[in-house]
């Protein structure tokens, strides 16, 4: 099937400068490591990145920031990245901070073909500035628009050659939402299996949403906050 690519370099080859790209993941959990590495290697510039977080200084989206490939970040929380903070305060980087649920639901709306949503998150705060407020049943809601992204880079645990995806644990997070939301979704999976091997009952993202798929390699899966208890 035409959806299958050998690696990230091939799958991402045509992403032009100035693209709006969604990147799945929460913190460093479930991020498209291979796709990010390919973008760094390719040197694609002037990117608008929609992602819950901005990685850390030397991993995840932090790698793109370091190379000054990002023009604008749309995120909910960017706390773990000193380079990000520096670029933000110096004005090199444009940043739009939005509530996490709003971020998720604006992805969802795009994937469901709905132009906008109403959410109470941010009412009465600076997030509401310039936005339409509507009252439903006595409570105020903000109108928020569906995202319009050119590409989504998502990471799944398993995928098949038709693009059906299964995510693992909390590495699911924004991945299935972004997979549904972009014009072209590029999924990287830890294990690419022949069609028919995934149980249809267990599929999280139907292949119709996935335009390109490849098996990723050398996953580092870095842990941000290692917390354990003694045996």
């Amino acid at each position, binding site marked *: 099937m035409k959806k299958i690519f050998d690696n990230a370099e091939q799958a991402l080859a045509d992403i032009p400068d100035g693209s709006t790209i969604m990147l799945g993941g929460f*913190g460093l*959990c479930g991020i498209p490591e291979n796709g990010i590495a390919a973008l760094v290697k390719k040197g694609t510039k002037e990117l608008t990145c929609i992602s819950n977080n901005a990685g850390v200084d030397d991993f995840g989206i932090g790698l793109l920031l370091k190379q000054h490939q990002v023009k604008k970040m749309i995120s909910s929380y960017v706390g773990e990245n000193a380079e990000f903070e520096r670029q933000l305060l110096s004005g090199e980087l444009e940043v739009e901070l939005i*509530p*996490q649920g709003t971020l998720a639901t604006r992805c969802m709306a795009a994937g469901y073909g709905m132009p906008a949503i109403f959410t109470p998150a941010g009412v009465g705060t600076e997030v509401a500035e310039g936005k339409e407020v509507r009252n439903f049943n006595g409570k105020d809601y903000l109108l928020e628009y569906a995202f319009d992204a050119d590409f989504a880079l998502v990471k799944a645990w398993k995928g098949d050659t038709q693009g059906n995806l299964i995510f693992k*644990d*909390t590495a*699911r997070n924004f991945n*299935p939402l972004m997979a549904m939301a972009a014009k072209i979704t590029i999924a990287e999976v830890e294990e690419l299996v022949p069609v028919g091997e995934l149980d249809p009952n267990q599929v999280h993202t139907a292949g119709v949403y996935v335009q390109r798929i490849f098996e990723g390699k050398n996953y580092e899966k870095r842990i941000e906050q290692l*917390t354990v208890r003694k045996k």
Partner: protein
Amino acid sequence: MALDKFQIAQRIARELQDGFYVNLGIGIPTLVANYIPEGMEVVLQSENGLLGMGPFPEEGKEDADLINAGKQTITTLPGSAFFDSAMSFGMIRSGKINLTVLGAMEVSQDGDIANWKIPGKMVKGMGGAMDLVASAKNIIVAMMHTNPKGESKLLPECSLPLTGKRCVKKIVTELAVLEIKDGAFHLLERAPGVSVEEIKEKTAGKLTVEGQIPEMIF
């Protein structure tokens, strides 16, 4: 004696009820999980996509794919469920989560909360806090009564950018338990040995004190 952070968490745990679904924020709120009363069924939600959050993993059993909203490695419990971020905030928005506990930099006597930004100093983002405070039916703030400079964090009006308006119902600090209603902080309980006078002195917003205020017992 003012409460330590563990006692603040212990006091908040007394607000839990059997069958509650609870979202605990980062910091002191996370500690509340250690004081869920024996025999009580409380399910913890982590907004990155998990219901039924368990304790930290044993050394060597950590899994990078299994973290909480504070990005810490965690475990699941029997009955856990994973979901995507939209569903996670869906259950928050639609009122299925019974209690939210979070930290704050400032709370106003009207229940406004500020906890995400200090202009010119700290811009980390609101994460899920704005969604949580806008929708949760029951919000408890766990915080210190004063900031490191000794200034009250319980104010007539918040000075920092707001996270949400008129949403906080209860506050537990190292000095007191207070309820917010009718535009005032109502003193419900005081920490062992802490006087009403001290609480008055450290509360900049309107404080209502009715009758004898009981001491918390630990």
